[in-house]
């Protein structure tokens, strides 16, 4: 198992995470919430603030 912020792309291509994904968090469950930083301001915000008034599409990713 590699560190979260790995220095080298893992040889297993994160396949264990892909295999586990269907069971990780299911449709119908409450969406995990937590604090994130708004990149525009550098200020913390709750992720839930973005779905408080309606549906929210969340894409996860990075520049690489």
């Amino acid at each position: 198992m590699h560190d979260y912020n790995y220095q080298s792309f893992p040889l297993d291509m994160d396949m264990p995470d892909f295999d586990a994904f269907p069971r990780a968090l299911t449709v119908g469950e409450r969406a995990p919430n937590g604090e994130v930083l708004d990149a525009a301001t550098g200020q913390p915000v709750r992720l839930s603030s973005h779905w408080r008034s309606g549906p929210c599409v969340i894409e996860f990713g990075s520049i690489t």
Partner: protein
Amino acid sequence: MAAKYADQGVSFVFVYTREAHPGERYGHLASIEQKLQHAREMVMRDGLTRPMLVDDLEGSLHHAYGRLPNMTYVIGGGGRVLYRASWTDADNLGIVVDRVVQQRVERREGIVHRPFYAEWEPSVVVDRLTFVEVLLETVGPRAVTEFIEAVGHTQSEQAARPLRQWWQDQAPEKTEPGV
């Protein structure tokens, strides 16, 4: 897509995670300041207009949602997961968001709805040659060699062979022994 649904009550956000392919230009993340910087550069590079939100350095929310490099979720206004996908595919997502919007309209008109459960496993086109070309340009040669090695290790040498050939064709001096 965010612009298309902007006035229909659906918001779009991007949550920045760990670097999926650390390399010369964008190394692995070692501080939240670095993570913020990478996120801001991505906003500028890709012209993102939706909010860019940065997960903590340990990836707490990334872990909670499944820890995959490019997932997409649709969360309903009540805070429940309506849709989740292991990859972000605009066509697939568009089908879902169109339906979510339509349901909102119908509910406002008083049409009664009852949720039902469905599962679906769509597929996406795999174009690894284009992927490594972009990876070389945006991140650097180390990210490319590591990706090719991982394809050979996890899938097969047959799957990696066209990538190795492409890599050799780029510039012989970039290739490393064994790649």
